């Protein structure tokens, strides 16, 4: 909130400086409408900001001035000298208060009341004694933690840094050619790192997440809805869209204004909403998204909407349009009349959104940055207001791809997935001169990017990038290669380039060769596939829901050369490890990895090459590794075509592209690896040795039991009472409430019902321990 207040003060100061000339001119000629309008806009903007920032005094002042000026604009009051003086006194007072807020000083409030009364009656306020505090404010200035810079300067900085990046790249090439050595390399690396960091910082100075304004909306909505006694739910989406800081500043006011209008005039009181069959709480959705070379900011409410015919009636009454012209207007044109100065659709004047006067200000602000405001509304159903703001400069996360030997960038938000054309699950078929891709049974239109860009020959589909343009239908774009995910600084291209409709802008990557950012929506339109996808999709959805669910499955070549598959979900990661970390120790292969020893499964006992590729799997308790030769693909397959009931590492056989592929059974893999695997610390069962003085138990038995995964304690230990099982020699420990496993010294049992276990019967002993601890856990 502090920052917002700072900004408000800085803004007010700037606006005051800017309109000081207007004020003087207006004083000289009070009938000058243009001057009147600009002063009006000033007090109106101040009022708007105050309402949000909770500055009631400033709000009252600006509201009173706005009231008086509105009457002048409406022609019900003449701008005489007394009124002009009263308004000017208020404008001055606004400046004083703003300074006082910044320096944290108090100004007497009765002065405000006197000024408000004066402007209401149109009397000349007595020369107000200038408070001493005001004169000292200039001295106390300097608390500001932000500075304002001309955009030009930032642009120059950015240009300079980009040049540095290019120079660094050239230097890097030259150094490579010259064969540089360690010391130079280290120095160069340091230079590179600081250049990169600098570029990032400079770019960020101009860019800001739109979240910065979106984040203040919930509070605004809350306050306004409380004040107006309305229920409003606010949805915000797309806050991570980054915009030029300049743009953010410029859309702040229009956005808050539109929201204010939506709550004040759009959303009906709860009882009216219920009567109209709507939910009691009104809904307002604010969203931002990038579409082509524009940022779209939408404010959608489900309130009463605007009746275009009433707008027209008012416009005719106000003399804005003639009756003849109005009759020739379409619905949209009629609605657009709300942006005309001096037209209000509100029945009553409120402190929240005034008289509908804001709409012309909204449009003026958006148009100032080269944007467009659209409004669409149906009476009773709500209103959608769209700001289309040009994308002057944005940082867009993008995927770089190649087609027809050229590199392009695709905005990442539009990308749904990237699939490789292979086998049955992902196919591309010609269809009536075009192509249709079948991705896991779903049909979507396919476009060959190379072909679209004029590469001759037959269409090639190696990799499909499945795109869903903003507000459009899905389609697959065939590209030759996918390179990388990058954050790109995108600038609009020249009009001649934008005219093609398929580019959203240009960007200059580090190699210094301009790259074009594709506009997915434009490509769809260019290829003429708009609207086809939707029908296909519904059809495909129905088909997909009927089919068996398929699961992503990793297809790989095993070390014995056989193709096998495993469900992707159990694979934690795929890693390359040095081959000497794998050792055949204590009867099985183990891998020393990440300071731990994990069981390694491999279908061979000889490893070639210096590195070993492993699949790391995790069952939630421990990891195992499975050595493979190479990963082939990730495919979506359903249930195995042949299921193997017998236990073993193979769960079944699936058919992939006509080949039989064994599907590994993760259960049996873990079971295979699990025996003897030491479990972690405290969840090991506690085994109490009854006789602490038995040297054989301590030296010989205990290590074996510990190796089997138990923690051995002796009666002198504090946790002896919490033991899961007690191990005792026959004869020791007559009565015990804990489960006891008794050992005998002789191999032969003493009788048929002898429950003791021969002390070197390792398997029998472990079995008995296990069943005792299990019983214990079950209890």
């Amino acid at each position, binding site marked *: 909130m502090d920052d917002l207040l700072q900004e408000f003060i800085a803004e007010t100061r700037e606006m005051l400086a800017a309109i000081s000339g207007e004020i003087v001119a207006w004083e000289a000629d009070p009938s000058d409408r243009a001057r009147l309008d600009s002063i009006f806009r000033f007090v109106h903007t101040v009022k708007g900001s105050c309402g949000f920032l909770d500055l009631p005094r400033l709000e009252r002042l600006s509201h009173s001035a706005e009231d008086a000026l509105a009457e002048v604009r409406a022609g019900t009051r003449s701008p005489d000298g007394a009124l002009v003086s009263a308004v000017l006194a208020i404008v001055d007072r606004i400046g004083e208060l703003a300074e006082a807020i910044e320096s944290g000083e108090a100004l007497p409030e009765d002065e405000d009341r006197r000024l408000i009364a004066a402007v209401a009656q149109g009397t000349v306020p007595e020369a107000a004694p200038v408070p001493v505090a005001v004169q000292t404010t200039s001295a106390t200035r300097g608390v500001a933690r932000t500075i304002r810079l001309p955009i030009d300067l930032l642009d120059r900085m950015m240009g300079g840094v980009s040049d540095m990046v290019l120079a660094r790249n050239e230097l890097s090439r030259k150094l490579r050619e010259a064969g540089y050595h360690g010391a130079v390399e280290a120095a160069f690396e340091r230079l590179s790192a600081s250049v990169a960091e600098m570029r990032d910082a400079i770019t960020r100075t101009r860019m800001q997440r739109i979240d910065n304004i979106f984040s203040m909306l919930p509070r605004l909505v809350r306050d306004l809805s409380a004040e107006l006694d309305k229920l409003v739910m606010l949805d915000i989406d797309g806050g991570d869209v980054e915009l030029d800081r300049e743009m953010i500043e410029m859309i702040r006011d229009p956005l808050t204004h539109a929201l204010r209008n939506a709550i004040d005039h759009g959303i009906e009181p709860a009882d009216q909403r219920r009567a109209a069959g709507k939910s009691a709480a009104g809904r307002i959705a604010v969203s931002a998204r990038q579409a082509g070379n524009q940022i779209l900011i939408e404010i959608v409410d489900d309130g009463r909407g605007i009746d275009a015919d009433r707008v027209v009636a008012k416009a005719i009454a106000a003399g804005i349009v003639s009756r003849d012209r109005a009759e020739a207007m379409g619905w949209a044109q009629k609605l657009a009349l709300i942006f005309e100065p001096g037209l209000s659709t509100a029945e009553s004047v409120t402190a929240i959104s005034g008289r509908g006067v804001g709409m012309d200000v909204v449009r003026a602000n958006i148009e100032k940055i080269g944007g467009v405001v659209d409004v669409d509304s149906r009476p009773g159903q709500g209103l959608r207001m769209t700001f289309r703001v040009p994308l002057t400069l944005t940082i867009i996360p993008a995927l770089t791809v190649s087609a027809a030997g050229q590199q392009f960038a695709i905005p990442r938000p539009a990308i749904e997935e990237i699939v490789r054309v292979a086998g049955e699950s992902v196919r591309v078929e010609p269809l009536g001169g075009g192509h249709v891709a079948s991705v896991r049974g779903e049909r979507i239109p396919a476009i060959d990017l190379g072909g679209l860009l004029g590469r001759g020959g037959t269409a090639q589909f190696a990799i499909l990038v499945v795109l869903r343009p903003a507000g459009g239908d899905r389609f697959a774009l065939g590209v030759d290669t996918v390179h990388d995910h990058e954050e790109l600084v995108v600038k609009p291209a020249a009009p001649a380039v934008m005219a*093609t409709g398929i580019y959203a802008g*240009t960007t200059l990557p580090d190699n210094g060769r301009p790259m074009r950012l594709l506009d997915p929506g434009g490509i769809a339109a260019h290829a003429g596939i708009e609207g086809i996808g939707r029908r296909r999709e519904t059809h495909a959805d129905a088909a997909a829901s009927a089919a068996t669910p398929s699961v992503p499955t990793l297809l790989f070549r095993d070390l014995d050369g056989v193709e096998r598959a495993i469900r992707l979900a159990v694979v934690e990661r795929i890693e390359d490890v040095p081959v000497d970390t794998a050792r055949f120790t204590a009867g099985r292969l183990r891998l020393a990895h990440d300071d731990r020893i994990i069981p390694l499964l491999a279908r061979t006992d000889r490893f070639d090459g210096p590195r070993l590729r492993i699949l790391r799997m995790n069952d939630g308790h421990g990891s195992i590794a499975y050595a493979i030769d190479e990963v082939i693909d990730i495919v979506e397959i359903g249930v195995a075509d042949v299921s193997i009931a017998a236990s073993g590492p193979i769960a079944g056989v699936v058919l992939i592209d006509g080949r039989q592929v064994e599907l590994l059974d993760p259960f049996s893999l873990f079971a295979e690896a699990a025996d003897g695997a030491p479990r972690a610390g405290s969840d090991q069962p506690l085994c109490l040795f009854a006789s602490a003085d038995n040297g054989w138990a301590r030296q010989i038995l205990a290590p074996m039991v510990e190796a089997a995964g138990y923690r051995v304690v002796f009666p002198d230990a504090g946790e002896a009472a919490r033991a899961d099982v007690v191990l005792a020699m026959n004869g020791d420990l007559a009565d015990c409430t804990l489960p006891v496993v008794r050992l005998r010294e002789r191999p032969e049992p003493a009788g048929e019902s002898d429950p003791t276990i021969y002390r070197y019967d390792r398997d029998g002993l472990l079995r008995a321990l296990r069943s005792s601890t299990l019983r214990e856990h079950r209890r």
Partner: protein
Amino acid sequence: MNQLYLLVEIAGQRVALPAEHVESVVELETVTPVPLVARHIAGLAALRSRVLTIVDSLAALELGRSALDGVLTAVIVTVESHLYGLLVEKVEDVVEIAGGVDPVRAPLGSAWGRVSQGIVDHDGDALLVIDPPLLIVGPGAIAA
């Protein structure tokens, strides 16, 4: 009323570009093509940190297309805050020409008439004055 002009050669003809439009003259090695763009846009190139849109002056005059190999000479102009490079065959000099621009009193061939502002007299030679923004607009837009 002296005016500065940059004398260049386009399609074998010496023409004058008003110097007020001209930012600099650069030599380019690579032009990245832009598929589907109007014929007279040769592609994009980078001028330091900025992206240049390269205009093929030959194509803009509907006189064929420039070969885009070897070192290209481009005159850099800024039109409506976008940076363009106009491909020219040769750059002669910046000259100061006294006297105004006279209207062309002869029928001009090809698209020359569309992009010219008039004629100036330089050392006894009549030079066509080319308006860079008109050259950039290209032939298509006029037909539309």
